[in-house]
């Protein structure tokens, strides 16, 4: 520390680390933010160091969650083996998968007879059901899973799930039921997606069929390649859009549940994915097929903390493409490349998209 330049540099590092710890606490108020902004602007070295802070934080955030827990967060080394086994039963999932984007996420194995599971904002979580089926939780979603003598029951509390069913391991086979506030869905050997909207449930069937029974109505079967929305009494059939329209989903439909038209048609040169393919979010992609930027931004913001908005003058711009849900900086760069827009990081958690 004898070198005054090094010491000065070290003080900046210290300041940056302290700002980071304060801002991450969630306790910083307006005044602190103004002060922090002033600090950032005071010296190019401050801004450069802050970029480094974000890079480091991003590096840790993108560690695959279950391996990071097993290998880095264990207590005493001798307890590691037990801990690794335990965490597979209790936790896991997939953080932002920067280092190995295509890698299969370690599953959480649903072991108990009745347990709640949820996913964080931005997380895609894969659960292995006791019968060997797979349940994927989209960002910010929650389910209760209860496998009992009479039924395999999944209660969707929040968000969106995708289920790939397996034949029951018990005889006689128990029905697999998904319950929402509006009714019960019964899987008939199948792969399907269920989304909670505002007071409604939306179903999309990829394979097999699903029988819907609204709380106050009779059952109806929805076949593969079709979808439906229902509340407690009525069911509206839906033609399944190509999954290119995946972006127009939960958050979006929640704002205009009834009159929304799926963006039709695809851009020249692109092949619309089959309606019976798994939705793009299960592959951590956000597909836009001629989607207005405003809708795209609303969907993307479901996958991140903080505020993400776009200026009215650019909200109508249309975009086409596949965007990685796990790497928002890459998405922003892609937007800036393909549209006349500028992505402004006003604060780390406050991003607005404006005309260039």
């Amino acid at each position, binding site marked *: 520390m004898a070198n005054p330049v090094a010491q000065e540099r070290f003080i900046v590092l210290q300041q940056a680390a302290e700002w980071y710890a304060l801002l991450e606490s969630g306790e910083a108020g307006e005044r602190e933010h103004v002060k922090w902004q002033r600090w950032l602007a005071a010296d190019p070295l401050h801004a450069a160091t802050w970029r480094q802070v974000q890079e480091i934080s991003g590096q*840790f955030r993108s560690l695959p969650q279950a391996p990071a827990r097993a290998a880095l967060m264990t207590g005493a080394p001798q307890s590691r083996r037990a801990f690794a086994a335990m965490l597979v039963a209790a936790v896991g999932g997939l953080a932002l998968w920067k280092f190995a984007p295509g890698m299969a996420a370690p599953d959480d194995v649903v072991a108990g007879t009745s347990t709640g599971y949820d996913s964080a904002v931005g997380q895609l979580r894969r659960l292995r059901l006791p019968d060997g089926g797979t349940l994927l939780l989209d960002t910010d979603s929650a389910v209760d899973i209860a496998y009992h003598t009479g039924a395999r029951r999944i209660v969707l509390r929040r968000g969106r799930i995708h289920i790939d069913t397996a034949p029951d391991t018990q005889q006689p086979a128990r029905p697999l039921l998904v319950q929402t506030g509006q009714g019960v869905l019964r899987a008939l050997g199948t792969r399907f997606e269920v989304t909670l909207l505002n007071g409604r449930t939306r179903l999309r069937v990829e394979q097999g069929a699903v029988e819907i029974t609204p709380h106050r109505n009779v059952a109806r079967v929805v076949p593969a390649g079709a979808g439906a929305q229902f509340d407690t009494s009525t069911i509206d059939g839906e033609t399944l859009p190509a999954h290119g329209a995946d972006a127009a989903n939960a958050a979006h439909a929640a704002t205009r549940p009834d009159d929304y038209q799926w963006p039709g048609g695809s851009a020249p040169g692109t092949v619309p994915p089959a309606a019976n393919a798994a939705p793009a979010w299960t592959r951590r992609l956000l597909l836009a097929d001629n989607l207005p930027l405003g809708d795209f931004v609303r969907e993307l913001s479901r996958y991140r903390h903080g505020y993400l908005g776009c200026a009215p003058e650019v909200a109508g711009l249309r975009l086409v493409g596949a965007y990685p849900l796990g790497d928002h900086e890459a998405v922003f760069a892609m937007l800036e490349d393909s549209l006349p827009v500028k992505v402004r990081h006003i604060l780390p958690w406050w991003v607005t998209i404006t005309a260039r």
Partner: protein
Amino acid sequence: MPASDCSLSTDSLHGDAVGRLYGEHHGWLLSWLRYKLGSAHLAADLAHDTFVRVLTTRAQAGILQPRAYLRTIAHGLAVNYWRRQDIERAYLDLLATLPADLAPSPEERLLVLEALHQADAMLARLSHKARRAFLMHQVDGSTYAEIALELGVSDRMVRKYVAQAMLQCLALAAAD
């Protein structure tokens, strides 16, 4: 260019010094490591790595106690080795619990392991609690309150831990 001539000659001097160090102490280091580690194979690897490290370190002009110096380096490498082993074992244990069709490919495993080793090295000198607090926040997205509860410390302390961890990472990055 005079400057590069100069550094070249320093390098070869340096190489000579290492050669002498190797000739006089390699046998001793090897037996010390074998005794410590209980494996001739591993001892040979680490002895080799120790001299590679000496060769790539510039601050060896006059080593007064060569054996203490070599032992320090070798010890650091051994700790590092065991640490990496622990991480690999923990990751493999985790993979072993996965059904075969979900197991990642060897390439993917390497990528994940590399990321884990890198992260581990960045947090190497932190206290156990600071390291845990930082990882809980970054990897799990736990709030300071949740971390405080888990670690039995105050929210304020959690903030300190997070700052410490970030500072260490920043300092390491700056030293590169």
